[in-house]
């Protein structure tokens, strides 16, 4: 389903609930959360540990399903899709940058960056990947494996991989959480620069207030609800 409106947000979630069963009964992680992000907008999601940030990110990105509510991404209701269909949407529209980099150890930097395009069956995967690795300053390290790269370098490979798939929405989960301050700052600069260049929507989950301040908008979660 596509509502076809030009003003409509690229990402929209309505009345999202997430409960998980525990030994003591159901535990509510997200409680009636609404969320919207316009095309090209950058939104920071902040909140204390356990406030539901990561769960919300997973649901918005189609990695997980809410217990109730619906999520629309690029005009498609992803909560109504099967895992098979959601995976295709992810491959087509979404990029990720994770706190723990999540590079595949057995693939070189170049192969890691090529992966999303290859999964889509793009013929030009290699050229695109080389271009983005050059853009993140790793043109000399393309044949290196993740374990041969520093944390900052690994995160730059992850950023190159995220943008190489030309996503409409980029989700970043604590992208500096595993990096020292100086390296983290350089990585964030790169992330924002590329985001502006690509025109993608950025949804950034972070603890870091300074980092959140660089986004267009801040959404605060408190105990599973959006704070006023």
């Amino acid at each position: 389903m596509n509502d076809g409106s030009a003003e409509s947000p690229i990402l929209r979630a309505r009345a999202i609930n997430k409960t998980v069963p525990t030994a003591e009964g159901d535990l509510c992680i997200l409680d009636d959360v609404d969320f919207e992000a316009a095309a090209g907008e950058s939104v920071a999601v902040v909140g204390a540990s356990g406030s539901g940030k990561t769960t919300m990110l997973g649901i918005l990105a189609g990695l997980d399903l809410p217990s109730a509510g619906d999520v629309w991404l690029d005009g498609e209701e992803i909560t109504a899709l099967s895992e098979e269909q959601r995976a295709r949407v992810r491959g087509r529209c979404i990029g990720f940058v994770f706190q723990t980099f999540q590079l595949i150890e057995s693939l070189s930097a170049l192969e890691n960056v090529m992966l999303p395009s290859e999964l889509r069956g793009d013929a030009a995967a290699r050229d695109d990947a080389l271009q983005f690795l050059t853009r993140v300053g790793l043109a000399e390290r393309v044949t290196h494996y993740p374990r041969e790269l520093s944390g900052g370098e690994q995160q730059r490979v992850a950023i190159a991989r995220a943008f190489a798939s030309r996503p409409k929405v980029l989700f970043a989960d604590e992208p500096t959480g595993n990096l020292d301050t100086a390296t983290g700052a350089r990585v964030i600069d790169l992330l924002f620069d590329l985001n502006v260049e690509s025109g993608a929507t950025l949804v950034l989950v972070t603890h870091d207030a300074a980092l959140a301040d660089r986004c267009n908008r801040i959404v605060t979660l408190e105990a599973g609800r959006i704070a006023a």
Partner: protein
Amino acid sequence: MTPRMVLRLAVRDWRAGELRLLLAAVVVAVGTVTAIGLFVDRLREALLSESTTFLGADRVIGSTRPIPEDFRDAARRLGLAQTDVITFPSMLFADESTDARSQLVSVKAVGDRYPLRGVLRVAGEPFGPAGVTDAVPAPGEVWLDSRLFPALDLAVGDTVALGYARLEIARVLVGEPDRGGSVFDLGPRLLMHIDDVPETRVIQPGSRVGYRLLLAGDDGSLAELRAAIEPDLAPNYRWRGIADANPTIGEALDRAESFLLLGGLLAVLLAGVAVALGAHRYARRHYDHVGVLKTLGATPSDVQWGYLGILSVVGGAGVVTGLVLGGLVHQGIVAALAAYLPASLPLPSPRPLALGAVTGFVCLLAFALPPLLALRGVSPMRVIRRDVHAGAASQAFTYGSAAIGGLGLLVWYSGDVFLTLWALVGGVGVCGAFAVLALALLRGGRVVGMQAGSAWRLALAGLQRRYRENVAQITIFGIAIMLLLILLLIRTALLDEWRAQLPEDAPNHFVMNVADDEVEAVQALLATHTDYDGHLFPMIRGRVMSVNGEAAESWAETHRRGPDGPRLRSERNLTWSDTLPDNNVLVEGAWWPEGTDEALISLEDEYAARFGLGIGDELAFDIGGLPVTARVANTRRVEWDSLQPNFFLIFSGGALRDFATTHMTSFHLDAEAKPFLNRLLSEHPTITVIEVDEIIRQVRSIVGRVTQAIELVLGLVLGAGALVLVASIQASHEARLKEHALVRALGGTMRLIAGALTAEFAVLGAFAGVVAVVGAELTVTVLRSQVFELGYELHPWLWLAGPAIGAVLIALIGYLGTRKLVESPPVLVLREL
């Protein structure tokens, strides 16, 4: 995922060492089955060709009448090789003088192509070293048995008279392939050319002559010939195949083949366990990998087909490598056993290769598929939340698939569903019993561990904490070690059995026809020149005339069990004795008192059973025209394989003491001592010496070959067992290391960790050893009594060796497998896990 990508991921995983264990397990499974298959295939070929040598041909048509020309024509049309053999008894004279020494000989006249299968063995001098020849006596020549030379005072080059023919002795005949029948029924052999037969004028109407047409060729043509001449065969012509030839070696070989396949199956099942462990570990290490792929857009189908693709690549590579390895191992065996095998072995059939390839894929599908298919269900949320359940394969699917695959292979190899079901029941039972025992050992270990030093306490605490995994591991290790112990013990049992049946110094010569007045002299000669120290058995021929007053024929008609075999009234060798012979065991009744005057008889138990005879029955005999009646006093079991003189019927002295008998016995003579026979026979020309050392040599060579094959299988099973150990240790070492890295971060020394890990593996190994010994003792006891018909025997050394082997082996493999990570800084270990 595209095939190229799958291939690249497989190559990457291979380079990263992720697939090596899986591949190694497949290679071992395929290699083992292929090597055993190829070897058994060729062994069977070799044995088949060896059995045909008992006939001297592939098939034989035999008769007391000349072979019709029609048969020959038919064989010729079908392209079969053929040659004629004529046998008849005749008197051989040392020369033509009237007082010349003479002896009844068994003449065999052969054509130029004789024998079609097997070889003739000849020597240059009587009882001299034998060699192989592909010639036959030329017309005008004869080849004689060694024993004829001293008996007739002859030498090679002399001329002898056979009927009207005068023939020159060209060589000494040592062995012919189709000697056949009972060696005791034959006179010494004279081999001559078939073209000389008419000149002898020995064959007259009514002569006892045997005609044989020897045939060789492919099975199809032979079957066609048989079909063509079938109507003309009965009742005068007999068609003989390999099955009719001497089948005594057959049983041992059947048993050996079952053993080889059983061993092969164990290796495959062990390799299957290694495949399962390797695949589970591979899958576990790919949960995050799959999570990442899914966030990047890989669909569950992409993941499923991608990993199936990787599995196919591994399977393909493993099968090809395994086939090559199996081929090489089999070549190695053939080379090692070249001395035993025929010079030109036929090429093996493609079946063993198919067997190996199918085994490899079945192994992979049954053991590796469930964990890899489960990767499809890994949630992409794992990428951001490690606590998300990975969606491992359901246990029912995992074990069900392994059971179906394993059983499928079992049924396929054994061709026996009933046996397979028993194996299933046994397998489940063993696993359950092992798990209970393992749990008891772990609980007990923890209690003891509370009092132990820190490394041991840490180790035992760790074992108890992860008791589920450890019970499973002890069970797996236990089964692997148990299988090795079983194989080792069975191998010993088999070898013991064969050695016991055929010891090095088993008698290999028989001396017969020793007259009463020669007994002392012959006994003295034997005692001086051989290891013989027994006594000579009196021997006399006689036949049963009636049982309890009823004529033997009518008794046999109503009491006989089983259709085949000699008749009750057949003439037999009889003896008498005051004592029970050494290798005989009384089954029923009592042995008679020494020197008894009562006419009593002792029956071999199977003979008694066959003719429905029992204690108290009265048997009337005709011995040399005189009637003798004796009452059955006992039955006894005879070891026919012992090569000692054995008798179905033994009388008490009271029955036969007064009859004039000849005497016989058996003794052992080494090849180099054989010239002694010249002296024995020239001093006692009327006695008969029969050499069975040739037959024994043949049996020995087969036993040797089978033994080597069994050792090979044992080696392969050991290899597969080691793989399971490595796989099992790898599968659990990450969890162990994470815990130990934490201990190190909290101040534990590297030495403490290394000690604790080694101790943990050693305890695990020792427990597995205990479990294995219990299982092995029980299994081997059952096998010994039910399959090999050997007695019960406990192995005390096993109770020490089993746990010790388990502890050392697993501690060593565990230590080597974890050393690198123990030595790396804890922060690295923690980060990597």
